[in-house]
Each structure stands twice: as C-alpha cells, then as structure tokens.
C-alpha cells in the first residue's frame, strides 16, 4: 500500500522532480541530528524527500545507489544571519544592498535583493551550508529577514520563508572607537551624556513607532471611512499579531536587557541576535521567557580589554547549560563557509559536539519554524544532505557529495575554477 502511495506521489511530482531526485545512500554513518548517530545504515531519497532510513531498505528496482562506505552523512547546515547574495564585494558600494536609508523600514524584504548569481552562494554551499537567513541591516527597523534555500534560478525559487523575521537593531549607547579604523568613527558621540541623549532619543522614536503601529492596527480594525493604507505600519501588523517574530540584534548585556524589557512592554515575540555578553540574571530571564538566541561568530575578540581571553568562546556553552535554544550565524557573506568552524570553536570551551552540530542544523530550523522541512535527516523532510569523509565541524574534512531537495549539488565554485585554471598553467 505504502509503496503504491509513494509511486503515486512520485508520479504527481514528476514535473518538478526528476528521476535523479530518487536514490539510495548505502552503508553510511548517519548523523541525523534529531537522534543518536547510526553507523552503517542507508537512506532512501525519493523525489527529493527522505523516504526511509534503515540498515536494509527495500527500494524500487533500478534505483541509483550511492556507496557511503567510510563516509558520514549530515543534514545541510543553516546560517541564521548572513548577507549572502546581498553583498558581493565588501568595499564596493555598488555591489552591496544590505543597509537602506532611514530609521524605520519594516516594509523592506531582504529576499528581493538577493542575487541568485552571486559567487558567494556556491562557495557557502560547497561547505555544506544549504539554507541561510538574508538579513537587512540599516537604521533601527531594517526590514524583513528571509530564509532562503541556497539553490535556485531566482530568489523566488530560493524562498523558504520570505518574512522569517522583522529585524530590529536595538539602539545602544556606544562610545567605542571603531577598532578596525584605529580611531573614533566620525559618528561617535563625544561623551557619555551625549551618547545617552542620543540613545534616549532613538528609543523614544522606536516606542512612538510601535505606538503608531498599534493605533494603525486599531484604525484598520475599526475600518472608518478615512482609513488609508500606510505601507510601513501595515508591514508591522504581523509583528503586532505575534505572527512574525522580531529578530532583535543586541550585543552588550545592557542592550540585551533593554531589548528584553522593550519586548515585554510591547508584548513581542522575539529572537535575540548578535549577543556577545551575558550575566547569569540575563540568562535566567532569557530561559524563563523562552527567547531563542542567534549567536555571532564564536571566534571573536573579547569586548573589553580586561575580559578573559576566551570570553566569546565560552558563551555557547553557557547558553546550553541554561537550556536556551540557540543557533550560530556568521553575519557575513564571504565567511559563511566557515559556519561549522564557528560552532566547533565552542567545543574545547565546554559545548558538546552534538550540541554544536545542532546549533547549525536542527536548532536553527526550530528557531525559524521550519523543522518540518529542514535541519535533520528524518523521514518526510527535504533531502538536504551532505556526504563527507569525516566530522563536518572539522576543517580538514572534505565534502564528497551534496544534495538539496534530492538534487545533486555542483560543488565547483569560483574558487575551484580559478584554482583548476591556474594549477594547469604549464611550468
């Protein structure tokens, strides 16, 4: 019966999925992430979906077989904050579409600015990253972050969840010199009181914006004759209705505490992001309120001169001990391929390997509400699979083959092509 149903479904999907989307990976060590590792098992993929997992699977005659002996199979990884496709060459303004002008732009959608031909996409993909958040980051409310599948002819093809979250860049008092420039930025406030004044002003603006949005919501519900659509405030409705989470970036403990207060007062469903500093009290509150956290690069310098040298390395294990749901992100484009190493960097400082892996797969999928499709190797999920010759989080590991929704992924990139071309230059 089941076989018939599968055949029937396969027939229905034949238009979108070809026969190459059906295959068996045999005798592989499977890291499903949702459960313990399974040595020497097989995974049957049918029409781009994981159809079955087990040591001995009955598959239709003629099914293509991939030998997984000695290899490891993982789900594709998810980077929970990137500028993939939105920024090609960092220093060239014309190639970046990350930060729009203006303080409040909830109507903007990152996904429409993702260039599917960006050279960064194959590079990220070739190291096992199959999904990523495209994150806009200008002003205070920067726009809508979209979750994308890193494969497609257009951004529409790539769309998993085009309005995954509203990005709120929580205001901070910053007197920090821009270390990369070795001097104070032109915009750095001259004193603490000046910084505080600017902060209060910005926070006030933010409160008023939310108040306006609520009034707009009421006006719309009342449906009076004079009601006119305001696109910015209209874009806030899913946030006010709790249908769309707010991804709040806040780095320092003070900003995180302020962001949590703000979210409570405004009754928002939030995801904290970019956090680099916690206190035990903050961790308790974050846990109690069930707020998930997107962590920035683990391999980062301590915020203050007198912080322990490993201050940032130990944050993931602190969150894990507290039982907080968290995922890793690079907040970058060219460095997305190093996402697994950012996760691995937390392991020598107290995070278990399995939990590091979860934070770039299943837990990220949970945070973005797509765990029914991606994030683990389980029956019924998309066949986003990475076949590697070792531990996915170790740099030395080579990726042998990959599939996204069962389609074989071309692992060549701008980098392999350039290397091949010049490696063949005669002596």
């Amino acid at each position, binding site marked *: 019966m089941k076989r018939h149903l599968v055949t029937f479904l396969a027939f229905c999907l034949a238009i979108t999925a070809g026969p190459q989307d059906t295959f068996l990976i045999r005798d592989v060590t499977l890291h499903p992430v949702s459960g313990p590792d399974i040595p020497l098992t097989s995974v049957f993929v049918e029409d781009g979906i994981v159809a079955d997992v087990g040591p001995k699977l009955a598959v239709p005659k003629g099914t293509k077989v991939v030998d997984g002996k000695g290899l490891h199979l993982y789900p594709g990884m998810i980077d929970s904050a990137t500028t993939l496709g939105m920024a090609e060459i960092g220093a060239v303004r014309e190639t970046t579409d990350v930060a729009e002008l203006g303080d409040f732009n909830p109507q903007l959608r990152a996904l429409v600015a993702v260039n599917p031909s960006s050279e960064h996409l194959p590079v990220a993909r070739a190291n096992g990253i199959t999904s990523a958040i495209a994150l806009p980051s200008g002003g205070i409310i920067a726009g809508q972050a979209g979750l994308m599948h890193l494969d497609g002819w257009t951004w529409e093809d790539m769309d998993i969840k085009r309005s995954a979250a509203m990005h709120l860049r929580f205001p901070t008092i910053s007197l920090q010199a821009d270390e990369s420039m070795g001097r104070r930025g032109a915009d750095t406030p001259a004193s603490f009181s000046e910084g505080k004044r600017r902060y209060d002003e910005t926070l006030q603006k933010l409160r008023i914006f939310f108040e306006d949005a609520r009034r707009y919501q009421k006006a719309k519900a009342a449906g009076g004759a004079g009601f006119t659509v305001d696109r910015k405030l209209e874009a806030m409705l899913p946030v006010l209705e709790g249908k769309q989470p707010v991804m709040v970036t806040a780095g320092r403990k003070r900003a995180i505490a302020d962001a949590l207060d703000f979210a409570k007062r405004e009754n928002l469903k939030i995801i904290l992001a970019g956090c680099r500093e916690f206190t035990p009290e903050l961790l308790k509150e974050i846990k109690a309120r069930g707020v998930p956290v997107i962590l920035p690069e683990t391999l980062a310098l301590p915020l203050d001169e007198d912080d322990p040298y490993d201050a940032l390395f130990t944050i993931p294990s602190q969150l894990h001990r507290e039982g907080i749901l968290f995922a890793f992100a690079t907040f970058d484009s060219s460095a997305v391929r190093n996402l697994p190493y950012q996760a691995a960097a937390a392991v020598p400082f107290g995070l278990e390997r399995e939990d590091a892996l979860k934070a770039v797969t299943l837990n990220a999928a949970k945070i973005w509400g797509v765990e029914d499709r991606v994030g683990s190797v389980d029956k019924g999920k998309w066949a986003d699979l990475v076949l590697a010759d070792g531990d996915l989080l170790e740099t030395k590991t080579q990726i042998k083959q990959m599939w996204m929704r069962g389609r074989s992924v071309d692992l060549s990139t701008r980098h392999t092509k350039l290397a091949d071309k*010049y490696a063949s230059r005669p002596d």
Partner: protein
Amino acid sequence: MRRSLCLMLGAVAALSAPAADLVIQNAKILTVTKGRLDGAIHIRDGRIVEVAPKILVPAGAEVLDAAGMYVMPGIVDCHSHIASESINEGSVSVSSMVGIEDVVDPDDISIYRALAGGVTTANILHGSANAIGGKCQVLKMRWGKDAAGLKFAGAKPGIKFALGENPKRRGQQAAFGATTLRYPATRMGVEDVIREAFLDAKRYQAEWKSYRARPAGRVAPRRDLKLEALVDVLEGQRLVHAHCYRADEILMLIRLADEQGFKIKTFQHVLEGYKVAKEIAAHGGGASTFSDWWAYKVEAYDATPYNAAIMHKRGVLVSLNSDSGELMRHLNNEAAKAVKYGRVSEDDALAMVTINAARQMEIDARIGSIEPGKDADLALFDGHPLSNYAKVQKVFIDGQLYFDRQKDLAQRAERSTRRKVLLEKQKKPQDDPGRRGPGRRAE
C-alpha cells in the same frame, strides 16, 4: 650600547628563570621539520638541548608531564599589527624613515591573547598606505616585559612595501581632513615611486661609498634616514615584505626588484600568487597569505583558498598569516585549511604557521621547529593542533612559561574582584580636583 643593554636584559631574564633544566615528558611532539615523535624535550637555559623518546632527567630539573598533550613549535605570524602604538605613516609615498621599533606597545592585551593562541613570535609590520612603508619589528610575545624585552634580538630587520588599491587610495581621495591628493593614483605610479626611490638610494649609496673610500679632507654626505633603509635593502641587510594582491603587480615588483638588484623576501597577502607562482618561485620570494579571505575588495575577488597549496606545489615558500589580532589566536586552525583546500600534508601545513614564517624572517636558525639548539618556544595543545577541538594549555618562550590556561582560570576570580573595586572607586566622587573622572570631564 644597545647591544650590551640587550645582553644585560637577557642575563636578567635568565637569572629569574625558575630552573635551568626543564624536561617535558610523555608528549606527542610535532617537530614540524622531523615529523612526529612521542617522547620528551629537554630544555636548558631557554634552549632545546634534546628531543628523544626517553630522556634521563638531570638532577634538579623541573619536570612537566605532558601526557595526552601535543607539543608544537610556538606559532610564528609573519604579518601582524599588534603591540604597536601606530601603524601607518601615510602622509608620504615613501616612509622608510619610520619604524615600528620606535612605537612598540608592551601593554597591548593582544600580546597575551596571541600567546593564548600559541603564538610566540610575530612580524609587526607598518601599514599599507604607501608604496614604500616603514620598517618592521620582530617581537616575541613575552607578555609582561617592556618594549625592549619584547624585541627579538638578532632578528634581521625588515621593511614594508605595498602595491595596489591601498597605496593608490590617497591619490584618488584625499585623506581625512586633507584637501590635496597624494601621488600615486595608479599601479603605474606605484611602480614609479618604488623605482625612483631606489634610484635615489643608489646615488646615496654611491656618495657614501666614495666618501668612505677617501674620507680624508672631505665632508661626509648628509645622512638621509629614508634612503639608508633602502640602501640596507640593496645590500641585502633588510628584508622586504611587500603587500600585494594582483598577479600583474606581483610580476611588476619582481621585475623591478630584478632591475634594481634587490630581493623581495615575502609577498604579503598575495591572493593572486597562484597565478604567478612560477615567477615568485624563480625570484626566490616567499608568500605569506590568508587561508581563505576573499571578496572584501576588488583586488581580493580572484582569491581562492587553494592559493597556499598551489604556490607550495610550485616551490614557493608559503606561510599563513593573520593580519588580525583575532585570527592570530587560531592560526593552527588556519593551517588546517591548507589541508582542506589542496591537500597539503599535515607537516607542511603546520610548517606554514611555524618554520616557513621563521624562514621568511630569516630567524629559522632560532625558532620554528622543535630541534636541539633552538629557542624553547613551544605551544602545548590538549588535542592535535590541526583539530578545531584542540585548545592551547601552555606556552613557553625561551623555556619560560608565559601562558598557562590553568593559571589564567585560577586568577579570574581575583581579577574580577579587583575590577569591581576599581569600578567602585571610579564611581565615588573624587577629592582630588585635578582628577579627570567621568563626572568632571569637559564636554
């Protein structure tokens, strides 16, 4: 005078050493030049005297049981800007009169953080704002010592050159607060500036040569500190570390150096080195590159992480550098990328962050591998250093313990208490009217 001061400081350091003999036992030793050996390292007076499967512990020697640990040579970074008060003298196109030696900052916490990542020696370079930049300074990460105590005594001097986008930037847009543009604005101009400077240096060299040959009754030529550094280069006494990206500019500099009769010791960054690896190897130049940075600017768009492996295979001496106080803390993981991208052997990959970098600074007789006669600069990891799961436990420089994770952890509670006390003090209103507290600061 300076030499004798260094010797004196050296003597003081040796006196303060806890024991003349130290034996590190039961270690997995990654010598880098002679493969892996499981056994012991005998250190005397800051130098390695023996590396063997079993070493008879001399009477009175300190013994460190390194069971389960990997010992590798202290990591060497050929491109860093830490521990320096300033980096770029960018007001002129040739700034060879200035040098990092005069602005070493021994209080920079980056030194300790680098140590905690297993780094023991770094080449501190001037910035890349000009075609010919300032002089470099090789430092050992002897955290706690003063500026003189950090300097790698006897290291050959160096100088920074820079090609491409950075040196021409001020020819295209004025510096902050300035109204005029600075020559050059193109890669053509960058070549011209370097050629002109060396022609000047040769005239200057000739003037002195003539004077020294017949000094009697003549006035010595006026000293020119800018040209002196370039005469050093011409005479092979100063190593050139040239920042570059594109294949065309790399080839240009090789031909220019050939024409003027000097050598480029290392091409720094050299992201397109793989395109002209043959020419770099023929010149005898080294390459000090990033493992996988790309796309941060136009000249970094043809980068490939296979760069190190391709150059290595073509016979170029390759090292992996950080150019960053953060990346510097895990260069061992950067070395693993040479294994991933291009399948460089594990020994060769480790060499890229140790002995190769030392060779590029011509200090390989002293550091960069675990061999008798070399400085006891060692990094102890709790796993294989090419694994992302390994971390540094201890670091020795000249046989002395400069980083110890357990000690660091043990001191944290006390440090945090001291910090709180200081912060409380700062909060209280101050009696001293001259003090510039936060409440009194002029706004």
